[in-house]
């Protein structure tokens, strides 16, 4: 109940954020603009619209996750509202989880709005809505939530600027970690491969949550790709929240 109150409060707070509203409007505008861009692609309009729509959802979702996720805790500390919250009968982990859930609801609303824009574009071009895109959208949402988890973790450790940089680095490594694994397999005798392996196992492999190309082109997917992707993402998020809570518990608000 206390978590829910915290989440609701965070949701109300974040939807009033102008940066988020601007990014969201820009993303929706870009998705609709893909109708024009797709027109230049010779018979490939539907593919271009879907690619643009899903990528815009992912990129702008990521931007919102970083900008809002990092400010989430730091704002409470800067405005000293955390003292008021901490003085109430609420556990520290409930604050972290409540805040996270609140932002998760905001991001869900964003993803739904962007999906509606994409569905609208799809309807105009193909005269139907492609529900086959849903698994990719679901995993994009999980990816955004994972990035929020990192943003929250870093923001409880360091300054906003560094948190943003670290979160971006995680995003980049997360999409390249498959190449690290391939490199280690190709050259197993290289001296530093233990280091690459370590990075591979610590950072999330965000390509596990990337079904964009597979759904757009109706390609064969690994069996249970969505279920495994969901479990992978949720498992990672729980670990991140546990770490954030552990750090947050040690903070002294007196």
């Amino acid at each position, binding site marked *: 109940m206390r978590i829910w109150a915290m989440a609701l409060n965070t949701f109300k707070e974040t939807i009033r954020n102008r940066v988020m509203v601007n990014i969201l409007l820009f993303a929706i505008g870009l998705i609709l603009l893909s109708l024009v*861009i797709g027109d*230049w*692609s*010779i*018979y*490939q309009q539907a*593919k*271009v619209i879907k*690619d*643009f729509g*899903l*990528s815009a959802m*992912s*990129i702008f979702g990521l931007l919102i996750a970083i900008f809002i996720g990092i400010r989430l805790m730091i704002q409470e500390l800067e405005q000293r509202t955390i003292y008021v919250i901490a003085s109430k009968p609420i556990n520290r982990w409930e604050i972290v989880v409540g805040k996270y859930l609140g932002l998760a609801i905001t991001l869900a609303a964003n993803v739904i709005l962007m999906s509606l824009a994409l569905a609208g574009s799809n309807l105009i071009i193909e005269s139907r809505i492609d529900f086959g895109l849903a698994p990719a959208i679901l995993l994009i949402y999980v990816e955004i939530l994972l990035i929020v988890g990192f943003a929250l973790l870093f923001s409880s450790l360091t300054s906003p600027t560094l948190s943003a940089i670290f979160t971006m680095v995680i995003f*980049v490594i997360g*999409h*390249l970690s498959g*190449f690290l694994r391939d490199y280690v397999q190709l050259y197993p005798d290289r001296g530093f491969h233990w280091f690459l392996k370590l990075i591979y196992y610590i950072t999330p492999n*965000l*390509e596990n949550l*990337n079904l*964009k*190309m597979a759904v*757009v*082109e109706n*390609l064969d997917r690994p069996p249970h790709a969505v279920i495994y992707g969901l479990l992978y993402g949720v498992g990672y998020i729980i670990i991140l929240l546990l770490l954030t809570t552990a750090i947050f518990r040690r903070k002294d608000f007196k």
Partner: protein
Amino acid sequence: MSMMVIVVNKTRSALDRYREIRFVDNRPVFLPKGKTLKWMSMGYRGLVSDWLWIQTVIYYGRRVMDEDNPYFKYSEEHGNLDKEMEAVEKAYPLEEPLLNINEELRHVLYQGKSRGLVNYIYPMLDRVTTLDPHFIFPYIFGGVYLLMDTGDIGAAQRLLDKGYKANPDRWEFPFYLGWIEWMYKGNLQSTNQYLLEAVSREGCPDYVGRLLTGISMNLGRTELTRAYLEGLIGSTDNPEIHERIGILLEQM
């Protein structure tokens, strides 16, 4: 204020002019290779390949269709260029001492024969298809439509072969590879083999089967083709392929 408006306008025109020249120039593709682009684009390979594809289409449109074609522009200003073009064709590849024409005209003639397309568009299409190997249309565009402009059979076949390897279930690739063998190389035996491969794939239209029957008869290889198709009908459980091959065997 008016001064600044003039400055902005002038610089914009200058930059636009520069862009136009660059656009029609016979420049190589200053982009990393497809494999590098693959990891550089991270989780957005589809988006990047779409973007490069659109760039390719725009380049093609401007170079071939529009008045940006330097050959078209030059001939409008200086009259018919047929004689010079003939000389260029004989002297290809363009060597310094071979042609007694100015550098601008030499460049224009080189571009005018669509060779610029080969230098720019095929490397671009290679990148597009490396990023997204299942993006079918760029293969067909490069392998069929562009071939008609450039006449570069090797580049077209390489692209279609690449598509065939990445999409072995698609009928389009063996069909168009067979079409090139027929139309550009006059090799009907090879066409026959490719068409056999095409009809054994799902979604292959009926006219391919009719073409196969005609070519097999022409080559006197009806029995061989029949034997191949009979083997195929026994090894497939796909009802669509089964039905198509049944009709073909009846026709034969």
